[in-house]
């Protein structure tokens, strides 16, 4: 089987952004692949743009990194000029500017989320092509294909912070179960008027889905627990 180690680094990915009553919750998996090889199993795909605005990155790792870097740079200057924190809308529009004007060259889908004093918590989806769509929740990356139905059923308006984060973690975990290009841990970032909180959910903290088994240290533990004749016919 050809691992194709020379393929461009791509974040297969599952990324999610959800608004709740008071702010936003951003979530992502942590797998970065080069062809079939997992180049980084613990990536951080939720990147800071300003104190109050973060972006979830998917698609080409390089493209999404360089776009984030440019926008962070522009927003830094914008904040100094304004004398106050940048709004989520401005951040999203700067991303859009780069995504749209370089649409031929870039292959990255982004979800911008944050909190500002004018509009509160907001999520903007910026898919391939550079369209900007403000949404109460957004999903992206290859893993998102498996989540459209889930969100159609599970999403509701005005969730609490805890409900929103649980929804995000559950969703990323479901996507990881079925998307080969997503995996690793679930990272979340919660942004509201009080500030920013980062959380980390390794595989063993997540619930098990269909045909998944409880992880063990070794077969030997199972055999010993089962009693005297565990492997008898």
């Amino acid at each position: 089987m050809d691992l194709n180690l020379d393929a461009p680094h791509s974040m297969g990915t599952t990324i999610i952004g959800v608004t709740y009553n008071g702010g936003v919750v951003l979530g992502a998996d942590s797998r970065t692949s080069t062809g079939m090889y997992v180049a980084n199993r613990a990536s951080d795909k939720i990147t800071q743009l300003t104190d109050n605005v973060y972006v979830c990155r998917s698609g080409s790792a390089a493209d999404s990194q360089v776009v984030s870097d440019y926008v962070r740079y522009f927003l830094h200057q914008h904040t100094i000029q304004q004398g106050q924190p940048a709004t989520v809308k401005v951040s999203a529009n700067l991303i859009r500017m780069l995504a749209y004007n370089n649409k031929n060259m870039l292959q990255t889908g982004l979800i911008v989320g944050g909190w500002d004093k004018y509009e509160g918590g907001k999520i903007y989806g910026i898919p391939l092509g550079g369209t900007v769509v403000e949404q109460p929740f957004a999903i992206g990356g290859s893993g998102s294909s498996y989540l459209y139905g889930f969100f159609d059923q599970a999403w509701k308006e005005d969730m609490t912070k805890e409900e929103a984060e649980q929804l995000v973690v559950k969703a990323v975990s479901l996507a990881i179960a079925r998307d080969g290009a997503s995996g690793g841990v679930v990272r979340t970032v919660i942004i509201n008027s009080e500030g920013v909180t980062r959380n980390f959910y390794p595989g063993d903290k997540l619930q098990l889905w269909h045909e998944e088994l409880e992880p063990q240290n070794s077969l030997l533990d199972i055999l010993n627990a089962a009693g005297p004749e565990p492997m008898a016919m």
Partner: protein
Amino acid sequence: MTFTIQIENGTEVRNAEADSQRTLYPYVTGTSVVAIKYKDGVLMASDMGGSYGSTLRYKNIERMKAIGKHSLLGASGEISDFQEILRYLDELTLNDNMWDDGNSLGPKEVHNYLTRVMYNRRNKFNPLWNTLVLGGVKNGEKYLGMVSMIGVSFEDNHVATGFGNHLARPILRDEWREDLGFEEGVKLLEKCMRVLLYRDRSAINKLQIAKMTEEGVTVSEPYSLKTFWEFKAFTNPTVGAEGSW
């Protein structure tokens, strides 16, 4: 200008569309827009879907936007290009207002501007991937026109884009009249939109209808249409022909 990236063992990596002078492809697309002139002005309808290939990804996209006081622009095709066109028109209307001479851009002027933009982009092999419908009323004159991504531009009493070309136009040709009232006009558009809902895979059941009259331009709240499935041939498709569909 194009370039290819070579790596050590001499194999070429696929050449991305790094040449910005080449024709692109659309990503997030809107489907049909249908519009008709009626007694008091112009009516336009479109659904609120943004498809991503075959996935019905976005279900709350407004594909019709007011331009100034007198016009309404509806778009099908790539949504990011539509958003860019709205920015161009924003600049146009702003500059027009700055003259502060009491004059304002009417639908005829906006349509002409858009035609120039679309045609010039087409000549550079870098089109805005949209078909635009421009309607409005100014000084009592009703206006309805279309521009395609290759710069084909014309006015008519009724227009349709995308699938609407095939499904809505025949209906409009048969049933459109000069003196349609508002209610008749809305019913006619809804007839077209319902057929599109049945037969266009990228249509979604959430639409808006916009009205343009001398008083101004308004876009309705989103709503859904009832559909009918209760034909005997549907409920019992294989009666008399077991094994067929």
